[in-house]
């Protein structure tokens, strides 16, 4: 006999990522129906940005994606630079890459270690989050803030790197790299985790194309390096060498997790090259307007600018009508497809205890879905 049970997973649930809810019908422990319930983090950013000046928006945009704020600053700056045809100084490009890659290491550490949350391996988060914190210390030294940096501005970066930070970054990267084998032993080579994750949360290429999943999800099924850093290099990603980890065929939670781990290594590789190839001196910001930045007007136009975030293609659609405020900015959260339609269509069939793993390894980030 079938007995269905209605279950609310979230928003107050330790397995949920952020303030997000999934309502489920379960039969035994198999999910029969699932409905996402977003909107708990909705702040109406798209409306608020229309009410603020182009420069004032710099304070608002990092808050759209909480765990990885720098990509927001980057897409906003890139969009405006396209519209206003601003040339960014060479050194600023490299500093931006440095910030973006350190942010990528930080978020991947958090989510790689964070898999310990849904699986019950609490050593993982304890190690990874405190190691991530050391990266935040570097951010604090460069930008003055731990989480929301407001550092990448249209035309370049806000201020130059402090003296001697390169040494510190290099040392930290060495430290993290030395720690990586321990993480591998703890999580990837842990027999319990292998058993738990190797058959959980399958994803196929057809599903990716149907939903529009990008990032690790798409790369883990198609076997192609579909990474915007490779396909459409922004900043100076065409001048550094790095590999994009890929996997072909149906991917499981374990595959995607090990790809995250590989991406940490690649990001460290990029950071080392950036420190090596970066011009040591030079301007860091182009002049964007003749008068005060508050009176600054961006020329008329529409542009979609996007970067590769840790979860995939992340971008802003920016519309300017030549005024001192944006006419409209639409945010494309990278986890929008898998976080809404994906949950509804492809969560049914998984077991209840795998739901949190599904959400974790698909990279569902609720603040960017809700905006």
């Amino acid at each position, binding site marked *: 006999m079938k007995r269905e049970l209605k279950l609310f997973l979230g928003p107050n649930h330790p397995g949920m990522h952020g303030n997000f809810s999934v309502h489920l019908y379960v039969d035994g422990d198999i999910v029969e129906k699932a409905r996402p319930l977003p909107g708990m983090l909705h702040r109406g950013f798209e409306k608020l940005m229309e009410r603020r000046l182009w420069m004032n928006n710099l304070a608002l945009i990092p808050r759209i994606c909480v765990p990885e704020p720098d990509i927001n600053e980057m897409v906003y700056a890139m969009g405006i630079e396209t519209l206003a045809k601003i040339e960014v100084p060479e050194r600023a490009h490299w500093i931006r890459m440095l910030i973006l890659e350190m942010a990528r290491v930080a978020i991947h550490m958090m989510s790689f270690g964070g898999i310990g949350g849904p699986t019950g391996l609490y050593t993982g988060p304890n190690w990874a989050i405190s190691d991530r914190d050391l990266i935040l210390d570097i951010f604090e030294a460069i930008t003055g803030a731990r989480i929301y940096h407001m550092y990448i501005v249209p035309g370049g970066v806000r201020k130059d790197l402090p003296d001697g930070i390169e040494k510190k970054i290099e040392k930290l990267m060495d430290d993290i790299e030395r720690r990586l084998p321990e993480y591998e032993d703890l999580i990837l080579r842990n027999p319990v985790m292998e058993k738990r994750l190797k058959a959980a949360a399958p994803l196929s290429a057809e599903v990716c194309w*149907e939903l529009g999943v990008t990032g690790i999800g*798409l790369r883990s099924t198609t076997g192609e390096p579909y990474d915007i850093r490779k396909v459409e290099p922004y900043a100076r990603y065409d001048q550094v060498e790095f590999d994009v980890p890929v996997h072909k065929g149906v991917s499981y939670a374990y595959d995607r997790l090990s790809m995250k781990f590989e991406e940490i290594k690649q990001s460290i590789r990029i950071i080392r090259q950036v420190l090596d190839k970066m011009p040591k001196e030079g301007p860091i910001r182009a002049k964007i307007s003749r008068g005060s930045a508050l009176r600054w007007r961006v020329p008329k136009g529409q542009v979609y600018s996007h970067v590769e975030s840790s979860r995939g293609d992340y971008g802003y659609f920016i519309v300017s009508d030549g005024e001192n405020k944006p006419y409209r900015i639409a945010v494309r959260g990278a986890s929008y497809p898998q976080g809404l339609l994906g949950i509804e269509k492809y969560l049914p069939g998984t077991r209840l205890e795998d739901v949190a793993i599904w959400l974790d390894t698909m990279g569902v980030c609720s603040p960017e879905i809700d905006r």
Partner: protein
Amino acid sequence: MNSMNDIINDLKNKFNPINVDVVNERQFAIDVENEELHTILAYLKAQGWRQLTLLTCIDWIKENKFQLVYIIYNWENPITINVRTKIERDNPKFRTIVSIYPGAEFYERDVHEFFGVEFEGNERSTKPLFLELWDDIPPLRKDFDPLAYSKKKFDVRDYKVDFIPKEGEAE
């Protein structure tokens, strides 16, 4: 058919776009009539633009029009195409593209929620998604004032000093 000019010429030969805007070397925008939008999207999808990146809407209140923007992306040939069309602002309705891009379902709900555009054929497009018990006009329309709504619903804390700059003071 690799460079962007070839694609634009090809689209101009096969369809009757109103206008083509080149944004930069990897992106262009194309304005089409309402009737042609679905055929052009289906054509481009067959050509390799397999990913619907974003579906959004712009409120041109002075023209009394909504502009729907479909941003599609091709991973093999990295060119972003913004397919745009304008619909009437009073009683806005449009046909869904779920049969072409199934991922559009929630984007259409999103646009309905924030602009009030109804998508025929997507039967759930009128269901609330982010907002719960919303009691005003759709919030991203230009004639909606969030500050007035916020003051009405959620009383602000009174301060003796006014921290918030008045309209135009920042200038």
